[in-house]
C-alpha cells in the first residue's frame, strides 16, 4: 500500500500521521508539498491537521486552492480514499469534497482535550477497524470544529448513514441522549466526522493519529490506520 500526506505551510500533524502510517503500513508514506502540481498514484491521501496558511480568511480556505489540491480532488473523484483530519476536514469542506462547513466553536474558545467518539458506521475502509457503536477516546484540538450544514444535507447525511463519528460521553451518550457536555464545540447533531456520498472520503475533527501509540497514553486511534492498511492492502 502507498499513502501520501499533503503538507501545507502551517500543517503541524503531518509528522504524527507519517509516524502512524509508517507503523501501520510498514513502509514510508510520501510527504507531498502543497505547491506540487501533481501527486503520484497512491492508495490513500491524508490531509493532516494544523493551521494551514494561518487560518487566514477561513480555516482551510487557502489550502483548498493550493496547486496540489486540484489533483487530490481529481483523484478523490476517481475513488482514491482521502482522509482529512481537523484542518484537513476543513480543507475538504472548502474544496467541496465534503458538504457543510466547520464554524468557530460555539463557546468561542480553542478546545484541546481528550473526548469520546461513538463509531456510527463501521462499513468503510476508514472505520472497519472499529465496531459499530464502539466508543473510543481521542483528542480534539481546534477553534473551528462546529459542524454546520443546511437541513436537507443533514437529513441526507443521516439517511445515507454518512455520519462516521459522533461526540459522546464515556458511556456512549450524545448530549441529546443525556451525555451532558459531550459535544465540545456546538457541532450540529453532535457530528464529529462525515463520509462523502461514495464513502471514500472521511473528514473528522478529532485526532486519531495522536492516540495511536502506547507511549502517547492511548491507542484508540490506531485501528483507523490498521483498518485502512487492511482494506487497501
Amino acid at each position, binding site marked *: 500500500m502507498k499513502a501520501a500526506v499533503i503538507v501545507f505551510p502551517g500543517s503541524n500533524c503531518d509528522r504524527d500521521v507519517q509516524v502512524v502510517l509508517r507503523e501501520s503500513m510498514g513502509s514510508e508514506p510520501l510527504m507531498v508539498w502543497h505547491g506540487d502540481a501533481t501527486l503520484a498514484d497512491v492508495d490513500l491521501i491524508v490531509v493532516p491537521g494544523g493551521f494551514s496558511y494561518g487560518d487566514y480568511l477561513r480555516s482551510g480556505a487557502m489550502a483548498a486552492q493550493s496547486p496540489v489540491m486540484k489533483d487530490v480532488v481529481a483523484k478523490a473523484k476517481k475513488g482514491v480514499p482521502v482522509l482529512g483530519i481537523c484542518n484537513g476536514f476543513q480543507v475538504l469542506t472548502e474544496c467541496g469534497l465534503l458538504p457543510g462547513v466547520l464554524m468557530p466553536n460555539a463557546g*468561542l474558545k480553542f478546545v484541546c482535550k481528550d473526548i469520546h467518539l461513538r463509531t456510527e458506521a463501521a462499513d468503510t475502509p476508514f472505520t472497519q477497524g472499529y465496531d459499530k457503536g464502539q466508543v473510543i477516546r481521542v483528542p480534539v484540538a481546534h477553534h473551528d470544529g462546529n459542524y454546520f450544514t443546511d437541513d436537507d444535507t443533514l437529513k441526507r447525511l443521516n439517511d445515507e448513514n454518512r455520519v462516521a463519528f459522533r461526540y459522546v460521553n464515556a458511556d456512549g451518550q450524545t448530549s441529546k441522549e443525556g451525555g451532558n457536555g459531550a459535544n465540545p464545540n*456546538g457541532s450540529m447533531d453532535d457530528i464529529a466526522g462525515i463520509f462523502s456520498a461514495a464513502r471514500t472520503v472521511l473528514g473528522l475533527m478529532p485526532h486519531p493519529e495522536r492516540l495511536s501509540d502506547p507511549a502517547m497514553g492511548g491507542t484508540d486511534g490506531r485501528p483507523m490506520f490498521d483498518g485502512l492498511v487492511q482494506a487497501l492492502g
Partner: protein
Amino acid sequence: MKAKVHVTLKPGVLDPQGKAVLHALEALGFGGVDGVRQGKFIELDLKESDPKKAEAEVEDMCKKLLANTVIEDYRVDISEG
C-alpha cells in the same frame, strides 16, 4: 477601480462572535441593541477599468474564495479608483 466586498453570515446561521459582542455591549450599558452580526470587509484594487467586467470578476472571486456560500452572503460595490 476599487471593489468593496462585504461578507456576512446568512440569516439563520448562528454567529457566536456576534452574540459575544452583543453581550459585551450590554455589559457596557448599551441596552438598545437587539442583535449583532459580525462579518468581513475586503477592499480590492483592480486593474480592470470597466465597471461591469470588474463586478463580474469580483463576483467570481467571491464564489471561489472570498466567501463560503454555504454559510455566507456577499455584496460587491465597485467604484472609481
